[in-house]
């Protein structure tokens, strides 16, 4: 193992040397990273990659990379995936330099266009040759953006998922449901996804960089995401006020991202982190852990982290990350694994891959020993048939005028539904 990782998994668990880089790819990805408001930046580095020089110039980030200058002359890809691929390949070396010596790489990308869809794949390939843990937040296009973008996005999700440790799909159709306003304008609609990404990344960084009441560090995260491929779930909720614990829990349980169609039936690893104020006593922490445990499996199977933020009061932010490993999970060799992708609906694919390499060693925590894939998690049933296609998950696409009629009409039309 590489020296860096050795220092990292040292016994005292110091995470001061942790190198985190958050990279926005393409227009949408860069926008999302631009707008990140992290509580405590620490060592987190932000970067942006785009083909469109003009768009990139407007980004306030320090580290920026224009790719494919020789091909697009600093203009965008115009949504063309083929151009995006060429461009990303041509700057493979520059991409590799960008992610060298990192421990955690978080890619933020809007799939469906040219640059983001193509460059994220190349970047993920490059990253898979390093020892870094790679997570991807990928927004999926709105239905109104057309079938072509949707198809590109679906294919990209399939490809990317093979290459990275965790891919979190964020369908814009679904996220739109979450805004406060009755009628969300298009610009606002895109910003909704950015807010979700922000909350997720913020929660992750807080857990990794702050010393918590229940401290979890990078090794906990690595234990959840020790294998490449497989499906990831992500959900977050936040609440303030008198009933903040109950409200945050309820909010989390109905988080739309936990009800997506391609949500795995059974999770192998679950990490729940919460950020609370100074008033969050141990009994309240216990209450939260009990309730979360009851909902998502037994308490012993879940890795909990709790961070206290002194500046907060009567406030709770919950974040859940879960991972379902693939059959015969290991660390698949990117690109060489036989994989079968069955396109079925919006963003659902079944992946089968086999790997002979031994899993990479992680810390010896009590928890990771327990979390063998055999862990019984029958209780992990939010809704037996939840999903964007739900009950029709396993049936053929119900295509009409380029729309899948099995997906609820209100989702495709962007009609907002209040559930409380």
């Amino acid at each position, binding site marked *: 193992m590489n020296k860096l990782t050795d220092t990292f998994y040292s016994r005292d668990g110091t995470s001061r040397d942790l190198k985190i880089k958050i990279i926005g790819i393409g227009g949408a990805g860069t926008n999302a990273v631009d707008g990140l408001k992290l509580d405590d930046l620490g060592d987190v580095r932000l970067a942006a990659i785009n083909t469109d020089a003009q768009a990139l110039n407007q980004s306030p980030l320090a580290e920026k990379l224009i790719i494919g200058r020789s091909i697009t002359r600093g203009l965008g890809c115009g949504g063309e995936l083929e151009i995006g691929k060429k461009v990303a390949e041509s700057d493979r070396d520059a991409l590799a330099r960008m992610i060298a010596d990192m421990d955690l790489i978080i890619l933020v990308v809007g799939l469906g266009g040219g640059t983001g869809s193509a460059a994220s794949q190349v970047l993920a390939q490059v990253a898979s040759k390093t020892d870094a843990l790679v997570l991807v937040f990928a927004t999926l296009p709105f239905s109104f953006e057309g079938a072509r973008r949707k198809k590109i996005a679906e294919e990209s999700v399939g490809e990317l998922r093979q290459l990275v440790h965790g891919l979190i799909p964020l369908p814009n159709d679904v996220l739109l*449901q979450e805004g406060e306003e009755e009628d969300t304008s298009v610009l606002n609609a895109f910003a909704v996804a950015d807010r979700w990404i922000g909350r997720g990344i913020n929660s992750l960084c807080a857990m990794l960089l702050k010393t918590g009441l229940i401290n979890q560090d990078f090794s906990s995260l690595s234990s959840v995401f020790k294998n490449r491929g497989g499906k990831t779930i992500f959900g977050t909720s936040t609440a303030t006020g008198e009933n903040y614990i109950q409200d945050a829990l309820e909010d989390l349980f*109905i988080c*739309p991202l936990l*009800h997506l169609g391609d949500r795995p039936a059974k999770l192998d690893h679950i990490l729940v982190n919460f950020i609370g104020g100074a008033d969050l006593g141990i009994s309240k922490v216990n209450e939260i852990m009990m309730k979360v445990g009851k909902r998502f499996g037994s308490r012993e199977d879940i890795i909990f982290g709790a961070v206290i933020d002194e500046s907060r009061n009567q406030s709770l932010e919950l974040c859940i990350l879960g991972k379902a490993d693939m059959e015969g999970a290991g660390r698949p060799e990117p690109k060489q694994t036989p994989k079968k992708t069955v396109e079925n609906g919006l963003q659902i694919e079944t992946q089968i891959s086999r790997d002979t390499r031994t899993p990479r060693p992680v810390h010896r925590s009590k928890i990771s020993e327990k979390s063998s894939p055999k862990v019984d998690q029958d209780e992990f049933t*939010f*809704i*037996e*048939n*939840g*999903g*964007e*296609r*739900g*009950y*029709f998950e396993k*049936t053929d696409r*119900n295509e*009409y005028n380029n729309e899948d*009629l*099995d997906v*609820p*009409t*209100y*989702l495709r*039309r962007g*009609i907002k*539904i*209040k*559930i*409380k």
Partner: protein
Amino acid sequence: MSQTRVVAAVEIGTSKIAVLVGEIVGESKLSIIGHSIGSSKGIKKGEIKDLHLAGDCVHATILKAEENAKCRVEEVYLAQTGRHLKGDFNVGSSSVSSPDSVVQNIDIDAAKKDARRRALPSGRIYIHHIQNPFSLDGRELSNPSSKKGRQLQVGYWSVHGDSEVVGDSLRVIQGIDLNVSDIILSSLASGVVLLEESEKDNGALVIDIGGGTTDYVLYRKGYIVKTGVVPVGGDHITNDLSIGLRVSTKNAEELKFKHGRAYYKIEDRDEKVWLIGDFTIGDRQYPLASITRIIEARVCEVFDIIREQLERSKVFDPSYIASGVVLTGGSANLLGITEAAQRCFDLEARVSDGPIDVSEELRLPEYSTTLGLLRYALTGQEERQEEAKPVGIIGKFSDWLNFN
């Protein structure tokens, strides 16, 4: 001497299987002697997904109907739905051959043959050729025989399906050693019993919103000018509610049943409803407006698709649909569905009271399709309603089945 046949009308629906057993005496007398409704499994969106599961359900329901009728079924008339069904309007023509320009049967047959000559791609099979009025030198006629003219034309609404899918439903019936005498579109079958003759003449659109599909048929001047299937039904409404409100399918079904409505009213904006309502632990309050919005979006989309399909075939003309929209099927019970239909079609709409001229017991929407099947079983022999009589399909089916 009159001959007696015992026929079963079978509708393999997505949410239920309906069987009616009828005794046909001679050429024109039909009495219904048995009926049963069974649960349906292995069927999604009107098509059989699991042959065994569906087969067991169908067999059980037929057996129950036989018990009820106290006799054995001899042949089966089967309803067909599903997204695989497609239709085309074909026009055939012939030049009047006799020197005095009087139309003779030979000319009529030539025009009919011409309209039906279009071959289908492999894997497709004709279910119905539904005849529309003749036109003799542009004059519309129901019977051109002995009329004078030069050019005779006739249109057919021809419906065809995927031979595999049709074959699956035949196999289910053949699995219990029964023969399928004919296959009839669900929409045709329900249309024929839900409408009065005068309504068919005035023009009416029958929409049957079932569990997995919505079938429709448009009558104009007494002729069937268009049929169609939208592979969306009550299951979709339940699924939408389940996803939108994040409740289980079972609870979504219950919410739909108890509080479902298809037309949003501003008064309901702040109304909340309980799922269970007796202070059971875990019960939650749901905004009625959300339930309505979800259902309304779905129902209106289905109506819009039907309207679009009618418009595309250039048969959507309100002045020829004077009797308006007649709704039937499980989801027709949703509150506000007529308002939704009125708004989407700009036509009068009503929910059907069920089949006409039958006993109280059978006047349930569940039986309307099967009653229509029996009507076809009867009139099919008479050659009276030729426009509705499927032509030669069983010949084609048996060829195809033997081939397999």
